[in-house]
């Protein structure tokens, strides 16, 4: 168990330190990179808890997709560092207030969970180590598609709405743009693609 303890403290320290660097880094791109590191070590913590499925999903979804888009956007932006720093003193109290609230909520939640357990009705849903016949993914699948099917579907609908909203907001049809129609190109035959005419010398093709 000594190995697990070492791994836990190592990854927990990296998570917290990386999280601190996200806010303290001067360059926004570095911030995003620190954020990725913190996601990654959080995934490591999930593995230690025996929740390897969630850990992998965290890496696939957050590190592999969401953070890539973050990085994209931040790299493309031409950020003026001086302007970013200007309002720091003014927004400091508000930021601190929000931080205090968040911290209080987290302490409350973790105290409750430590007292009673997060999911009491399902016995040990995340454990897939020794002694448990169910693998992680199976355990999640069993409750997700039965007990929580409505929540699952509702979450899917919310995502769908968000996706359609994003498309509607950004879709623009410019008039007069010629688009490539792949179907027409594929269906083109010598008959439709060319015309054979007899030319008399000195005359062009009359259109």
């Amino acid at each position, binding site marked *: 168990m000594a190995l697990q303890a070492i791994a836990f403290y190592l990854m927990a320290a990296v998570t917290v330190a990386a999280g601190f660097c996200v806010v303290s880094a001067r360059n926004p791109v570095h911030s995003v*990179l620190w954020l990725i590191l913190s996601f990654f070590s959080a995934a490591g913590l999930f593995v230690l808890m025996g929740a390897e499925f969630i850990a992998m999903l965290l890496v*696939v979804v957050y590190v592999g997709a969401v953070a890539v888009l973050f990085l994209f956007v931040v790299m493309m932006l031409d950020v003026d560092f001086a302007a970013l720093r200007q309002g720091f003193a003014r927004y400091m109290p508000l930021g601190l207030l929000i931080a205090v609230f968040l911290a209080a909520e987290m302490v409350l939640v973790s105290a409750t969970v430590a007292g009673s357990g997060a999911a009491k009705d399902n016995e040990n849903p995340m454990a897939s180590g020794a002694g448990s016949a169910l693998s992680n993914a199976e355990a999640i699948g069993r409750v997700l598609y039965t007990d929580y099917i409505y929540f699952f579907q509702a979450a899917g609908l919310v995502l769908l709405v968000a996706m359609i909203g994003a498309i509607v907001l950004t879709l623009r049809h410019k008039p007069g743009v010629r688009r490539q129609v792949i179907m027409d190109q594929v269906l083109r035959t010598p008959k439709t693609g060319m015309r054979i005419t007899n030319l008399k010398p000195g005359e062009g093709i009359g259109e």
Partner: protein
Amino acid sequence: MAEFWSSPIGWTIITVAHILAVTVVLLLTIAFIIYGDRKIFAGVQARKGPNVVGPFGLLQSFADLGKFLVKELVIPAGADKAVYLLAPLISVTLALGAWAVMPIAPGWAVSDINVGILYLFAVSSMGVYGIIMGGWASNSKYPFLGSLRSAAQMVSYEVSIGFVIITVILLAGTMNLNEITRAQEGGFWHWFMFGGGPDWHVNWPLVLIMFPMGVIFFISGLAETNRPPFDLPEAESELVAGYAVEYGSTPYMLFYLAETANIVLMSGLMAVLFLGGWNAPWPTPYLAAWPAWLVGLHGLFFYAAKTFFVFFMNAMVRSIVPRYRYDQLMRLGWKVFLPTSLVAVAVVAGWRVYTGLPG
């Protein structure tokens, strides 16, 4: 002695030894894979290819290695030094780390985890960071454009790869790569390429779905590893060398190494998911009488043979097919592969429910 090996220290030593063995063999394989790639490329163009260093030029990759190592490392003045040097390291770490779960022979994976395939998917989706960071940290136009292209391309093709993997998971009923391989035991008609699995006599009509899925996986793998005809990120006629323009010496070699390791990984994954991994293409009841190490070698032989076969196809595509245009590449990924694989997932899932077999 057995007690010592199960103690934390012994366990650590054994695991490190496994990792070293896999890495060394992998690096040697990559050296010869690069050589083979160049030979195939040359053969298609009626050239001789590398033939000077060593017999038949076999040691060419090692000569190249020495050349890269002794060159001077030049860091561009405007570069973000830390990120610039970190990018190739991340690339190569991820590319080698992915091999931790690869079942190269019965029981020969370094780490036999339950979510092996998700792990591979996660690691390969992180591979894009090396390229983005390298392109950005170079502080130069061509690398930046190359890395943007690469990121968009890899994110797009990952989606269809994910769906193709789901069809295989549905058939195998597990995400453990060893179990997936074991489900394809007993002859090539059990391979998932042909519908297959343990219930092949029920699932054989799925060949109509799974064979195209195999092809989609192969093509998406080409795009995911930035191989020609999808090598837009390093299209030399447009972007000089894409994200690697400002790199030289050892960092460039690391990028190159990571790229090749990823190609071999994709070939190996194709072999595991669709071609039965370490299973022979015929029923193997005779293996029960063999000692364990011989069974391992038997498996390793077939795994390697399939991986090299897929790699050979990969190299042939590289030398034969002309490069795609970028908008066509995106169209292929989003408008052709994504809907096709999505429909395939629905059909395979429906088929599994309809036939009602467990697993």
